């Protein structure tokens, strides 16, 4: 039953489509509204946003590969628990890797690296895609979704960092007399910037719709 379903899906869209859909049509943050916690919490600087995005993308890729290759072994009844165990293993690894590479960065991200475990995006892809598709398309799916997530985080991080501290990846970009918008670094700034990006994207979609009509 399971394998039959898998074959139907595989013969459907091409692998490149699986990759591209994560970037725009099904962007995890702007369209599916998944994984909001890290999106808002660690995007106060572009560096944090990029690290978080790449860490999540890595966990997503590894867990998609594992789930997809084990999809015929894992019994249906305990699948969610098994997925969580797989995800938690990779998150622990990423947590230690970041700690080894850059301790300061690890401190500024705090508990949010560990919290990738409960990012609904990863469990969502495992359940909705990797458990039903072969390894190759699961890799493309994970790369697309991971990249889409990273880009979305960067969109927020760059705006918040430039307006909030006048820097871009820690480089000064604004004139010295630039009045910094402290609110951008505060939690509420995260909500506002994400809302603004959503407005922009909704407007773009609306315009495309109008052009079609």
């Amino acid at each position: 039953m399971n394998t039959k379903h898998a074959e139907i899906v595989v013969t459907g869209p091409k692998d490149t489509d699986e990759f591209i859909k994560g970037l725009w049509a099904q962007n995890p943050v702007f369209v599916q509204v998944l994984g909001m916690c890290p999106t808002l919490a660690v995007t106060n600087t572009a560096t944090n946003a990029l690290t978080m995005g790449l860490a999540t993308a890595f966990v997503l890729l590894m867990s998609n590969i594992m789930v997809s290759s084990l999809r015929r072994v894992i019994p249906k009844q305990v699948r969610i628990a098994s997925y969580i165990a797989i995800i938690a293993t990779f998150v622990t690894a990423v947590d230690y890797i970041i700690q080894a590479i850059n301790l300061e960065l690890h401190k500024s991200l705090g508990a949010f690296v560990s919290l990738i475990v409960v990012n609904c995006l990863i469990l969502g892809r495992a359940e909705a895609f990797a458990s039903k598709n072969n390894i190759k398309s699961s890799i493309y799916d994970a790369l697309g979704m991971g990249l889409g997530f990273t880009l979305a985080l960067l969109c927020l991080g760059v705006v918040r960092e430039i307006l909030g501290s006048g820097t871009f990846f820690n480089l000064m970009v604004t004139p010295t007399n630039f009045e910094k918008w402290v609110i951008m670094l505060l939690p509420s700034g995260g909500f506002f910037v994400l809302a603004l990006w959503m407005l922009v994207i909704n407007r773009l979609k609306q315009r495309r719709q109008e052009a079609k009509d």
Partner: protein
Amino acid sequence: MTEQSLWSIFISASLINNFVLAYFLGICPFLGVSGKFTTATRMGLAVTFVMLIASVCAYGINILLTLINAPYLQLISYIVVIASTVQIVEMFIKKVSPALFRTLGIFLPLITTNCAILGLALFQTNRGYDLIQSIVFALGAGLGFTLALILMAGIREKLELAEVPNIAQGTAVSLIIAGILSLTFMGFAGLGS
């Protein structure tokens, strides 16, 4: 530990560093289930309840992991133990008090993967709270979550009567409201400490 520090943990967790509005934990249910007032209240209570259980569990696990010297198992054991405990508690409530089960029922399994729960467990471990402090912390965080959810639900019920521009409908307008709420909660920053 003195009375004062317990009180400040409570105030800090519920108001100053509100889980939803300052730490962004549990945003998914915050945006998803805050449409109706009654649902929001029940969800908040369920989360508070699970937080209390998770907090005690996490405290126990942490002692055990320190004993066998395996800190790298922290994350995986937290999430597995919390998920299974919630499952057992759910069955227990169903048997003992059907009325309570109807109130919390559907939300219990959902909130196991709510990042606020795991976040709470990780925070209390990082800060080295003892058992009583952990329980107070969980209670404060849960009630803070409930408060944010109820406030949001109240505003969104009113919002249904307002004219929202087409492009701002749905998530965008909820996020703007959340931003304003978060600003409001900044006002509590002077409390406690």
